[in-house]
């Protein structure tokens, strides 16, 4: 079996932020209770000229800036999101054109709640392993929707990351991947509706925890590994609490989770969530480091990956694109009324 893994990666997070306390105040909730119960201090907000296409393009361009791959050698672009700008017309076509990878290119958009980006990684892995393409770009990005006043509003944010999957000069080898999927209606958005609905507490035990834990155990079973074998663990982060709790239940320590845990300061970037967490880890990872990754998508499913960082990370030019920490630091706050205007929450006839 040929090696397959990450050749390069790039991230993008919009610059605007809103504090959870400002959202809580707008709805007459206690800011401290909200912030501490969700573990989210602030979240990223897309400006009116940012959407999944622009975030995906910026992330893909960042990934390309860090390697010497001719965009014409990219054979596939898969964009995972639940906020594609068009219901019909693939985001991947816009990304493909904007990175000059068209026209000999396989493209499709994916949707699987928050795990569409990791599903795109698996597709690219298969295409690369079977030698149908030399390189594939897997993107997970969202400008996630939340109804005004809904609990989702405190976390639903925007951002994304792109991973170039290939066979040569791999900075991180993907040793194993597996998925766990069932029909679990914990969270959904009906066709043509603007905002999602969810099952409240039902999104926890039978949904997030069952799928992530089962899949994580399956992965460690097939990789013959234990939590202590990993330097880092990245989990999907719908809020600041779930990833830490699931890590503890599986036997991982908070130290293993810390570098990839971004939700408390940027919110839940949905399809970008696990991908940005992994990007944050790769920003500081060293050769030989082992990374455990488990995404979660409502509906529901989880994709897990066992990853080993290679020697090529040493000469990898991180500096040619912004680090995740730099994207997080570059911020500008907006108040709730500006947020409402930018997110199209105000009624308009």
């Amino acid at each position: 079996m040929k090696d397959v893994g990450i050749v390069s990666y790039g991230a993008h997070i919009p610059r605007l932020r809103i504090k959870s306390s400002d959202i809580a105040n707008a709805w007459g909730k206690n800011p401290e209770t909200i912030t501490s119960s969700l573990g989210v201090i602030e979240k990223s907000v897309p400006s009116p000229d940012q959407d999944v296409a622009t975030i995906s393009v910026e992330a893909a361009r960042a990934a390309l800036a860090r390697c010497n791959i001719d965009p014409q050698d990219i054979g596939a672009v898969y964009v995972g999101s639940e906020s594609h700008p068009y219901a019909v017309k693939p985001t991947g076509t816009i990304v493909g054109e904007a990175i000059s990878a068209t026209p000999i290119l396989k493209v499709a958009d994916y949707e699987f709640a928050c795990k569409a980006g990791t599903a795109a990684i698996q597709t690219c892995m298969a295409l690369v392993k079977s030698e149908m393409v030399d390189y594939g770009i897997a993107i997970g990005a969202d400008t996630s929707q939340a109804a005004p006043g809904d609990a989702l509003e405190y976390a639903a944010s925007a951002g994304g990351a792109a991973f170039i999957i290939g066979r040569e000069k791999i900075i991180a080898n993907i040793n194993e991947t597996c998925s766990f999927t069932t029909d679990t209606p914990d969270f959904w958005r009906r066709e043509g509706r603007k905002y999602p609905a969810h099952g409240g507490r039902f999104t926890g035990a039978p949904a997030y925890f069952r799928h992530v834990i089962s899949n994580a155990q399956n992965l460690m079973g097939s990789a013959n590994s234990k939590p202590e074998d990993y330097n880092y663990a990245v989990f999907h982060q719908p809020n600041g609490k779930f990833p830490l709790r699931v890590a503890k239940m599986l036997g991982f320590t908070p130290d293993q989770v810390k570098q990839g845990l971004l939700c408390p300061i940027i919110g839940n970037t949905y399809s970008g969530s696990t991908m940005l967490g992994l990007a944050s880890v790769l920003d500081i990872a060293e050769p030989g480091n082992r990374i455990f990754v488990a995404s979660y998508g409502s509906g529901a499913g989880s994709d897990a990956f066992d990853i080993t960082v290679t020697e090529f990370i040493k000469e990898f030019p991180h500096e040619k694109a912004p680090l995740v920490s730099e994207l997080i630091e570059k911020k500008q706050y907006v108040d709730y009324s500006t947020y409402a205007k930018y997110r199209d929450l105000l009624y308009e006839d």
Partner: protein
Amino acid sequence: MADGAVPRFWREIPQRYNLIGNQCGSCSKIYFPPRESCPYCRRKSMGKMKVLKLKGQGEVLTYSIIYNAPEHFERQTPYPIAIIKLDEGPKVTAQIVDCKLDDVKIGMRVQSTFRKIHEDGYIGAIYYGYKFKPIEVK
């Protein structure tokens, strides 16, 4: 955007997404948007205009803050719009983003970024293209 704009936009995708201009094969002048022929070399440039991708970096020559925006841009006011001299020579007009209004300065170094320019209501096409943001000094 009025009817008929979709094909026009589509034809301009290379320049709007990737700042693809061209260069006269006779006098080496660089053009953006690309020209069919060089206005200086005229006939000598015919068939010699070479495609050239601009790097997307330049400096602000002048700018204005827009408070009364045209249709499609109302939600973004107030916002800066600038004339930017690209390093290769051509000048372009574009919005400045990711920058506080007070921080926009003449001479400021900027780089292109990919943004939504406008959308044709809730039903029509979405048009993407270049805007510019400050080059962050590390």
